């Protein structure tokens, strides 16, 4: 097969694609996770809660596939990252799984019985199903930046010294809080488009405050990065060698995470986008430009997540136990052949996915209100 890209470039492409998938997940599934978090608070009556659920009802499952695909892509393109992070964060993954399992059944089963207790239990299950994944993802990302306690032996058997409680440190909790708050804003922006009246009023009130909160959290995170130990590759064979994380040397020291911003000055666009997006979401929502506010929030999500990726590039999962074992773009990827096959599949199918997803959103455009629920009560969520 003709080598159109060399291995190094292919790895960068797949690092970008991984980011794209995770950002896609945060933007698309983010708004229905945020909606679920808002459900018990913005929806005060049964009809209001049904309105909220049916605003995202037809599209949430397709949105969640961004998450499934993200997991599949990590498995296919970065198998060591998949193996170390999923087994390392064992209890956290289990909690996320339980929360995600509650989603399809929550949406489909909640309104099938006309009983207040039944429906309230499901409402809180849905709330948890939105809160827990949002929180855990933020905490996980915080831990990625801090480095995680793992190592490999000569046969690449993982030595796993990652505890559960130690995953919750001030920095990682900050990231978790930001994640929840950021996705709640994303959910509120989407819901503003789909709802009206009292529900929309409550959302707007929230959108006057929450973006501020996000900006503060994000700024604190940035400041803390100066004090935290970052990682830096000091010696590596070459970026196109076969994937073997044991073949390099890494140094760990305070402030190393900010190095990329001096080396590649244009990286600063990401955090700027993170801040600006929140500000614009707040302003645009206030002036009733709901679709533009959603776009602004989405751009902020893009900015915030890109900031994480660009900050630790080329590291994907640093090891605090044995920095040399860290997983980086240059030595944790799949083989050249696999990356090519996956790239072709992605190039063919992602545009197709985007087009039929857009079609579905277009068909379902318009407000959801009490009349909508009343008309088709037996068949709606």
């Amino acid at each position, binding site marked *: 097969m003709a080598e159109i890209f060399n291995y190094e470039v292919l790895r960068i492409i797949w690092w970008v694609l991984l980011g794209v998938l995770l950002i896609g997940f945060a933007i698309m599934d983010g708004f229905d996770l945020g909606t679920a978090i808002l459900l018990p608070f913005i929806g005060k009556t049964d009809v209001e809660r049904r309105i909220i659920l049916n605003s995202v009802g037809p599209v949430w499952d397709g949105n*969640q596939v961004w998450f499934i695909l993200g997991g599949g892509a990590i498995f296919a393109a970065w*198998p060591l990252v998949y193996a*170390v992070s999923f087994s390392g964060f064992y209890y956290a993954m289990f909690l996320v*799984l339980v929360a995600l399992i509650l989603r*399809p059944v929550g949406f489909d089963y909640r309104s*099938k019985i006309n009983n207040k207790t039944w429906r309230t239990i499901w409402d809180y299950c849905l709330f948890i199903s939105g809160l827990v994944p949002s929180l855990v993802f933020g905490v996980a990302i915080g831990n990625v930046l801090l480095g995680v306690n793992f190592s490999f032996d000569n046969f*690449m058997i993982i030595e796993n010294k990652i505890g559960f409680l130690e995953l919750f440190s001030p920095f990682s909790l900050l990231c978790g809080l930001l994640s929840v708050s950021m996705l709640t804003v994303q959910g509120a922006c989407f819901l503003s488009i789909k709802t009206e009246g009292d529900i929309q009023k409550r959302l707007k009130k929230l959108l006057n405050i929450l973006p501020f909160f996000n900006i503060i959290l994000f700024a604190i995170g940035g400041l803390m990065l100066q004090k935290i130990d970052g990682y830096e590759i000091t010696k590596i064979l070459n970026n196109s060698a076969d994937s073997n994380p044991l073949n390099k040397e890494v140094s760990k020291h305070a402030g190393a995470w900010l190095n990329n911003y001096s080396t590649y000055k244009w990286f600063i666009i990401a955090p700027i986008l993170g801040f600006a997006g929140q500000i614009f979401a707040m302003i645009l929502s206030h002036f009733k430009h709901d679709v533009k506010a959603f776009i602004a929030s989405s751009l902020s999500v893009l900015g915030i997540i890109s900031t994480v990726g660009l900050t630790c590039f080329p590291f994907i999962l640093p090891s605090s136990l044995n920095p040399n074992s860290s997983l980086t773009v240059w030595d944790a990827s799949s083989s050249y052949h696999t990356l090519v*096959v996956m790239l072709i599949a992605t190039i063919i*199918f992602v545009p197709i996915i985007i087009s039929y*997803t857009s079609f579905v959103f277009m068909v379902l455009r318009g407000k959801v209100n009490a009349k909508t629920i009343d008309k088709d009560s037996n068949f709606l969520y």
Partner: protein
Amino acid sequence: MDLTLVEASRLQFAITAIYHFLFVPLTLGLAVIIGIMESIYVMTNREIWRDLTKFWGKLFAINFAMGVATGITMEFQFGTNWAYYSHYVGDIFGVPLAIEGLMAFFLESTFVGLFLFGWDKLSKVKHLIVTWLMAIGTNLSALWILIANGWMQNPIGAKFNAESMRMELDSFQKIFFNDVAQSKFVHTISAGYVTGAMFVLSISCYYLLKKTNLEIAKRSIIIASSFGLLSALSVVVLGDESGYSAGLNQKMKLAAMEGMWETHEAPAPLAIFAIPDQKNQKNDYEIEVPYVLGLIATRSFDKQVPGIKDLVKVSESRIRNGIGQYKILKNLRDGKSSNPQADKAFLKENFQDIGYALLLKKYRPDIENAGEEEILKSANDTIPNVAPLFYGFRIMVGLGLFFIILFGTAFYKMNLKGNFNCKLLLQICLISLPLPWIASELGWFVAEHGRQPWVIEGILPTFLAISSVSKAQVLTSLFGFIILYSTLLIVDIFLMVKFIKMGPNKILHKQYS
């Protein structure tokens, strides 16, 4: 009950997979049946066919939700509980999983929303296309996951890379066209179609027995019995194909399924019944039919079906050869090789027995020093547990033949003769409801238990594939899943029964007789 970490991990995977496969076959079959019903609606413009679609669609949605819920677990369990597996074969195995996401999950999950909620927003034809796209999505999902599983059973198209210490993709074409994968795929979706057909048939017979919703029930039966008959024939034929494939690629699995301890003269006889004695490696009370197995499994009169004992001898020689390959690998990984480049190149072509050597790790970490007794024990470890495979396989096949007879009878009496009044037939159809589920789960049991001790046939033993996690962690998740899944299963069945009892007339506010 004291479980090891490996046993707990295996038990969790088995339980979560079995739970997932309670919902998948119904999704596969019912999606296609609904597509057929809606197609008839669009072609005839008769309201009742739209109501049929909506009624069965409601039950479909209850089931689909559980399929999605239990499916998420599967995608992540490879990472959480089988981390070494994920590293060792992820370069190959991850590809069909990711493509499943790109091609199938997006399709089915995006269009299920429009299927359920787009009736008033789409034209008749557009909604029909949505329904079929959803059905195609579910079937594509089966394709890719079975390509992945097919590779576990017959790991072609891959080579070993000593630098990255893992198996790597060599030919995507070989993986896609793997005949184990292809026959498995058609066999499995056929099983799904049988399940969907039985679901519709049984519930419709319930309405006939209760003498309500007759117009809906009769039309449902006409679709279900014909679709069911074709699917039942397909599942048995493709089952035969899978067996033939096992004879070529997984000889030990076939021998174990058939309880064949000794190699018989060709064509080998088929054991209809036996009581396998694993310890003494023989069968008691065996009832044989001459020639049949040889003819089915080898499709010839003169090819032998190797027995378990002879296959153990093959394993033994592969273990010995594997120790040599392992020694070179170990030196290389420990930095003690005198010519790393040459060794890497050698291992790229000569890795096929390393997996067999790895079996010795059960008895000692330094397998390069393994003694005769350990080699013989490991060779014996390549025999899976014969009795459950022997019985499980026979029950599954028996059920498959029963399905052909049942659907055939229903088709003859109800479709051809228009006789919906035979009470005995209706009752048999009704109580047959759980049978396709039993057959499907037995099929998976035979497929996966039959490949033990391997997680990747001949390449990686199951006990080496686990994550470096504590037993407490796995027991927590194991019991967590059991409790959560059982609760949800009860809720799912409760809702299904509630809506089945309500019936189409009440649900749709209609008045069909």
